[in-house]
C-alpha cells in the first residue's frame, strides 16, 4: 500500500506542491533532451545515407572536444582552434570514408557496425596518446560562453536558469534549424535525402556516394564538436563524455532510425522523461541513478507497440 502510494500518488503531490521545482526539473530535462536530439541527428544522417549504425559518434564528441582544448593549450586563439578542429573533423571524415567505409561497401550491416566500433577503439587510443586521459577544463570563457545564471521566481518559488544552458539550447536549436534548412533547401541536402530514400535511384541520377558519405560524416563531426563544447562546459572534457552517445541510442529507437523528426522529438521526450522519472520515482523508490537505463526501458516499451519506432519507416517484409 505504501509502495502504491509512493508510485501513484506521492510524486504527483510533490509536483503540485512545488511547481517551481517541477519547472526546474523540466528545464534540466529539456537541456539534456536538446543535446540528445542533436547527437541522434548525427546518427540518423549517417544511417539514412549509408545504413551504417555509427557507434563512433560518442568518441567523435570526445575527440572533437579534446582537439579543441588541446589546440587552445598550444597557444592558438579560441576561435581559430574551433576552425582548426573543424578541419581535423573533416580530415577524419575523409579518412574514415577512404580507409574504412569504401572497402566495406555492400557488407552486411553488422560488419559495418563492428567497423565503427573498431574506429571507436582506434580513436580512444589515439586521443589518449595525443591528449592524455585526464579531465580537462573546457575553454568556455575564451569562446564567450556566459557563465552566470538568471533566477526567476514563478509562484513565489525559485527557478535557476544557467546562462550556459540557455546558450546550449539556443545554439542547438539554431543548429538543428540550419541542418533542416540545409537538408531541405540546398542541392547537397536534397542529395543526402535522395540517397536515404533509394540508393540505386540516387546513384543513377548522378549523386556521388563518396561525396555524400564524407559530407554526412563531416556533419556528424560538426555536431560532435558542438555537443562536445556544450557537454564539456558542464562536466569537463574526458573520455567519460562518450557515455552521452549511449544516451542517443534509445532516442533513435524511440524516434525511428531513419527519421529526422523522430530524432528531435525522441530526444526531447527522453530528456524530459528520464529527468522526471529520476527525480520523482527513481531517487525515492529505487535508490537513484536510474538515468543509465530508464531511457532504454522506455524505448523498449514503445517498441513493443511500434517495432519501427514512433516515426521510423514502416518495415515491410516480403519473402
Amino acid at each position, binding site marked *: 500500500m505504501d509502495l502504491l502510494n509512493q508510485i501513484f500518488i506521492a510524486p504527483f503531490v510533490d509536483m503540485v506542491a512545488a511547481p517551481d521545482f517541477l519547472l526546474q526539473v523540466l528545464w534540466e530535462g529539456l537541456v539534456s533532451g536538446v543535446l540528445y536530439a542533436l547527437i541522434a541527428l548525427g546518427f540518423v544522417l549517417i544511417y539514412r545515407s549509408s545504413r551504417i549504425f555509427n557507434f563512433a559518434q560518442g568518441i567523435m564528441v570526445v575527440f572533437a572536444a579534446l582537439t579543441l582544448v588541446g589546440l587552445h593549450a598550444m597557444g592558438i586563439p579560441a576561435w581559430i582552434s574551433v576552425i582548426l578542429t573543424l578541419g581535423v573533423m573533416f580530415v577524419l571524415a575523409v579518412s574514415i570514408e577512404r580507409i574504412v567505409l569504401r572497402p566495406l561497401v555492400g557488407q552486411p550491416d553488422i560488419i559495418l557496425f563492428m567497423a565503427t566500433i573498431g574506429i571507436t577503439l582506434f580513436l*580512444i587510443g*589515439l586521443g589518449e596518446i595525443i591528449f592524455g586521459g585526464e579531465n580537462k577544463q573546457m575553454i568556455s570563457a575564451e569562446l564567450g560562453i556566459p557563465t552566470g545564471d538568471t533566477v526567476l521566481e514563478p509562484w513565489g518559488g525559485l527557478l535557476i536558469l544557467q546562462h550556459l544552458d540557455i546558450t546550449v539550447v539556443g545554439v542547438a536549436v539554431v543548429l538543428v534549424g540550419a541542418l533542416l534548412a540545409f537538408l531541405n533547401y540546398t542541392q547537397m541536402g536534397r542529395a543526402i535525402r535522395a540517397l536515404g530514400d533509394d540508393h540505386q535511384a540516387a546513384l543513377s541520377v548522378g549523386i556521388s556516394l563518396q561525396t555524400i558519405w564524407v559530407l554526412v560524416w563531416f556533419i556528424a563531426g560538426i555536431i560532435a564538436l558542438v555537443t562536445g563544447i556544450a557537454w564539456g562546459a558542464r562536466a569537463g572534457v574526458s573520455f567519460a563524455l562518450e557515455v552521452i552517445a*549511449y544516451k542517443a541510442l534509445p532516442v533513435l*529507437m524511440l524516434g525511428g*532510425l531513419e527519421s529526422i523528426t523522430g530524432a528531435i522529438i525522441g530526444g526531447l521526450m527522453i530528456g524530459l522523461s528520464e529527468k522526471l522519472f529520476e527525480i520523482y520515482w527513481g531517487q525515492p523508490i529505487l535508490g537513484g541513478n536510474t538515468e*543509465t537505463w530508464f531511457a532504454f526501458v522506455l524505448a523498449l516499451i514503445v517498441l513493443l507497440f511500434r517495432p519501427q519506432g514512433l516515426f521510423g519507416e514502416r*518495415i515491410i517484409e516480403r519473402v
Partner: protein
Amino acid sequence: MLYRTAGQYKTSYEADQALFPVRQDAVLLGIILLFVWVIFPLTASEFTFQTLLIPILIYSLAALGLNILTGYAGQLSLGTAAFMGVGAYACYKMITIMPWMNPIVAILLSGFFSAGVGVMFGIPSLRIKGFYLAIATLAAQFFLVWLFEKWAWLYNYNASGAIQVPNLDIFGLYVSGPQADSIVQYYVVLFIVSLLTWLCINLTRGTLGRTWKATRDMDIAAELIGINLMRSKLTAFAISSYVVGVAGALFVFMWRGAAEPNLFDIPLSFRILFIAIIGGLGSIMGNYLGAILIVGLPVVLNLLPETLGIPISSSMVEHLNIMIVGSLIVFFLIVEPHGLAQLWRLLREKLILWPFPY
C-alpha cells in the same frame, strides 16, 4: 599431400554427416586436445595460466554463447556482459547460501538463472529486429549492471559492493579462491568449456540448430515453412544466455577472484562481440581463434617493447594496444568479413590440392 581426402569413401548417409567426415580433421582435433589437456598444463607457468590459458578458454565460452544467438539465430545482442554478470552473481549467491555445494555444480546451475533472465529480455525479439533489437539488448546491459550495484542482497550487504570469491574445495582440493592452484582451476575451466562446446556442436547440428539457421536467414520464410519463431528465438536466447552465464561464473570464480558491478559493463560486451565476429559468426571453432587473437594480442604487445628493448611507458603501451586492436578489427573486417574460421576453410581447400594444385 598431408590433407588428402581421396580414398575416404562414405557408404552411408550417417557416415557422410558425421562430425569429422575427413580423417585428418579428427587427427588434428586429437592433437589439439592432447596439447590442451596434457602438454600445456605440464609446461605452462603461473603467468601463462593466468594471462593466456584460462582467460582464452573463458572468453571463448562467452563468445560461443553469443555466437549461438547472433551467429546461428541471427539476433544481434549487445548485452552479453550483463548476462555473464547474472551468472556470476547467481553462482555467488548459491555458494553463500549453500556452502556445502559442489562448486562445479554451482557454476553449471548458475547458467539457468541467466537463461531465465535472457529469455525475459529475449521476448522483445519476437517483435523487434535488427539494430532496434541490438539497442533493446542494451537495455538489459544497463539495467542489470545498475541492479548489481543497487540490490545489496546480491553482494550480501558488504560495504565494498563487490563480490569476493571464497575458498571452495572439491574433496579437499581447492578449486577457487585465493588458495586454489592455477592448474586445478585450468582443468575445471577446461572440463566445463569442453563439455559445453561438445553440447553446442551437437545442438547446432541438430533440429534446433537448423531451426535457428532458418530463423537467421529469413524469419518470415522460416515461419511459412512451419517453424515456430517464438520457440526458435526464445530457445536461442535461453541456451545462449545459459552458456554466457556459465562463462560469467567461471570468469569470476576461476579467474578474477572478485568482481565489481562495473566489471560487467559495456566494454566487456563489445570484447566478446569482437571475438565472435573476428572468429567468424556461425562457427564454433571461430570463437577459439577469435579469443586467442583478442586475448593473446595485448599480452604479446605488452611484452614486445620489453623484449625489443624499446623504452616506452606502460600507459603508452596500453593506449597503443587499444589503437592496434581497433585497427586490426577494421583490417580483419575488410580482409575477411566472415572471420578467421573462413580463413581456415579457405586454407583447407588449398591444402586438399597441395602440392599439385591442378
